[in-house]
């Protein structure tokens, strides 16, 4: 893995929140909220924040058969596409309270690349010469 230059916890959390297009004020408040209210592993800040987001993503998209990483990414994307940073605060996204309005909006903005699979088979067809073709063509003459 590529080395990220050593930064303070605040810097990393701030950078993480900027992803969601929160304004500077909301980012400042969010950083304070996350550092004081949430358990963040100082050695792996991104993973800690992703884990918080995953909890929320699982509640929002319970029916989707997706990997954890994909569910987290889906929530991030939906939040940005829905301009969520203008309507909600960091607490709404990372906190334990469930904001139904947020949930609905995130579901509506979920990016679906393709519908669920409806698996079925398609077998290779036989493309072959007729039986005894050469016999048919030449055999009679030999007789």
């Amino acid at each position, binding site marked *: 893995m590529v080395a990220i230059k050593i930064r303070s916890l605040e810097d990393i959390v701030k950078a993480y929140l900027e992803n969601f297009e929160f304004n500077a004020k909301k980012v400042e408040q969010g950083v304070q909220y996350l550092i004081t209210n949430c358990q963040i592993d100082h050695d792996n800040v991104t993973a800690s924040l992703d884990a918080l987001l995953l909890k929320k993503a699982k509640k929002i998209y319970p029916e989707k058969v997706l990997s954890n990483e994909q569910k987290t990414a889906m929530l991030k994307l939906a939040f940005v596409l829905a301009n969520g940073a203008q309507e909600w605060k960091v607490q709404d996204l990372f906190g334990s309270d469930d904001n139904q309005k947020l949930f609905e909006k995130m579901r509506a903005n979920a990016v679906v*690349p393709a519908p669920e699979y409806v698996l079925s088979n398609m077998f290779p067809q036989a493309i072959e010469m007729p039986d005894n073709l050469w016999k048919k063509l030449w055999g009679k003459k030999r007789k």
Partner: protein
Amino acid sequence: MSEGFYKNISPRHVLRRRIKVFGLTILSTFLATIKWMEVIPTDSTLVTHFLMVLLFVLTFGWIALFFWSSMFGFFELLRNRKVPGIHWVSANTKVKTKTALLMPVYNEKPQSVFANLAAMAEELAKTGQGDAFDVFVLSDTTNPKCWVEEERVWLETKKLFPKEVNLYYRRRPINTARKSGNIEDFCKKWGAGYDFMIVLDADSLVNGKTMLTMVQLMEANENAGIIQAPPMCVNQHSLFARMQQFAGKVYGPIVSAGLAYWQVGDSNYWGHNAIIRVNAFMQCCGLPVLSGRKPFGGHILSHDFVEAALIRRGGWSAWLLPELKGSYEECPPTMIDFAVRDRRWCQGNMQHMKVLISKGLHPVSRIHFLIGIMSYLSSPLWLSFLLVGLMIALGREFFPPVYFTESRTLFPTWPVFDKIGTISLFVLSMFMLIFPKFLGLIVYCLKNNKQERKGALKSVLIEIVFSALMAPIMMMFQSKFVLDIFAGRDSGWNTQNRGDCSTSFKQAWQRHKWHMLLGILTTVVVWFYAHELFWWMLPITLGLMLSIPISMITSYESCGRWCRKHNFFVIPEEIKEPKIIERARYFEDVLEAKKQSFSGVLEVISNPIMNALHLVLLPINGPAPEIAKSILDAAQIKLDTFINHGLVPEFSKDEEIALLYDADTLREMHLAMILAK
């Protein structure tokens, strides 16, 4: 022919149509061959005599089939008759089925592809039945920059799409069996959810109403497996492309109508702009890997013909319906691009030699294969025909005829050469080639208004001159392709050049130098040793000698625009542009305006939306291909240098692909980018 196969005609009626076309083809070839046998110089050897007759039968028969098919097509169009045997329905019929529009892509320009889809979706929504359609972009893209761009443009296009039409995207990491494998992959994963699929090409545009009609026809004709809407070439500006577009517009209708006349429900499928019944396709059209080595063995390249034959073998009908207007595509902009595409098609058609004799195929399906094979094989046949003729003439120069043989005779043995007979056969062949073009012009003039007809006659005359000059060049290209294929050389899979771009002297020299030298050499030889053939050979030798300037001049957009200004090769679609083409161009401009400063992996790590989007789409891209860890390590170091020192890295394709499949690195690097800012 199964019971109830046709809606309103009897199988005997269909048989009568075929007897007319093929009977006249055989009869005219037979009569011309008898004449030809009379005009072959009497001093030629038995072997050359046999070769001349055989080559004549094959090449003349080919022209005769085209001629008679076009003649019947002409009369069908004059009488305004629809293809019989299929049940037509009212345009207002509400459809009850679900159709998928499939757009398979391979390293194409995403903005153009998605713009076309947005225009088609908009048209579908206008029909009021847009909710009966879903659109799938099935990517086989291998270029990492193009891959990321496809993802971004997909997201942008979703915003332009009408709400009732879904736009989906999936990418295959491994392109098994190319386009046919791509479609098969769709069928296996999602096919069961759809009744029909409309297969498109990257440059396809089909009117909403036309697509709806195709679905309505499929619903009303439960026996129909495939309905093909003949595509019309549009949107290109080079002189070469303009001539193709014009030829397609003027001559295309009688060719299509002629084919539909005798093919009826046993038609062919051209690989795109066609609707297919999904369950019939899945039941009958799984393609095997042909035994033996490439180019004859391996995956089937020209899968469309084979799929049509297999679906027909399964008891379903296949229709070519010239009545379906509003189906468009783009033709290659230059002669070289045309030849590159032809190389691929040539290999696909030669591969059909293996399929041609396979069990259970309908005789008409076998004829489709033969026509495909002959459309390429006819070039080396023509070349051989010319060479044998030249050899006879040269032989006479170097081995003068023996007037008095050893056995004593009263009179000398004069070699007989029937000049009048030869000229009449030549005129007949030219007539059969050129006359259908004028029939096409008559239909074109009858069906278009005064403004659209302007310049049509002079365009046809110039087109005939240009096509005569280009024919020997294409003959040389195709002869080489056939030889290459028989020598076991594979064509590979290259993206087709679709944008206008002129041919440089260097490119033209590389491609045509042998054509030019052969033209000069033949002219010199003929001038000195077979002078009587000089003027006969000139249309061929002139085209070859001028191959470089012809290839260059016809590739210029400026020449094409000059022609447009002076009413040469103008098609009605340029005078009154169809709405769908106009909208596609508008959407392309909108999507082009959203291009990012970074591309590929740099875009994914610098743009938060792209970072999240790429991670969401990663599983749909399938499992990562196996790439050595050392490649990923090297790529990560380059990325690190970029983030910390701002040096824009140059990744190899494998490095970029490895990074794009490494979700952890992409997440970390995105954060590092924000921190670095």
